[in-house]
């Protein structure tokens, strides 16, 4: 594609498609608040990893369950 082709394409686009001038029509904060409310608190990967480690330990050493419960 030559520079001339490039300019012709740009001119065609400019003639037919205009830059967006659309403005926001309403305040979106009430919708944002609803979204914040509906999302449950995220559990971090570290918490999940800790839980998995505890479950794995208890499966491998079932005798540790009473000790674990005692320390809860």
């Amino acid at each position, binding site marked *: *594609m030559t520079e001339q*082709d*490039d300019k*012709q*394409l*740009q*001119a*065609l*686009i400019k*003639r*037919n*498609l*205009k*830059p*967006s*001038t*659309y*403005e*926001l*029509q309403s*305040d*979106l*904060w009430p*919708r*944002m608040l609803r*979204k*914040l409310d509906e*999302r449950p608190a*995220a559990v971090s990967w570290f918490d999940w990893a800790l839980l998995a480690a505890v479950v794995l330990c208890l499966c491998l050493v079932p005798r540790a369950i009473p000790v674990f419960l005692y320390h809860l």
Partner: protein
Amino acid sequence: MELSEQQSELLEQFAQGDLSAFEALFRQFQSEVYRWIMRLVRDPSTAEDLTIETFWRIYRSRARFDSRRSFGAWARRIATNAALDYLKTKRPETVELQDFHASSAANPAIQCDTREHLEQAFRRLPAKLQIAAILALVEGQPHQEIAEVLGISLGAVKLRVFRASRLLRKELESKGIEP
């Protein structure tokens, strides 16, 4: 640009998870973010949804925000990623570009046909190329600004615009339109 003390304090409060600081920033930047997304997706209702999604992402990653940097630039980058994700998941046929129309037309019938083919050609571009092409060829944004907002090099922007132009031209030629 030096941030005012008040703005700097607001950004610090936001980074610490203060909801009222987030609300203040939301109200301050929602129009700017919406306008930016509107440029990329060209559909008012999708732009509203993506504005909410952008601020949701902003709120979620507030701890990573460096309060000494520009909130607007950060928000714009997150908004661009949200728009990119949206365009990637949408099939070309389902993306309506309602705000694409030029107001003046020398010959309305021919112009309308060409415009429709151009819109379709843009919709068919891969998301990354589509965003670069819209910003460069329709919105007339400087390549350097596009590079900053997309987080890529100037060369990569030029390459994307070049590839998009080539695909647009090919698509238009297949419809019998010679630019």
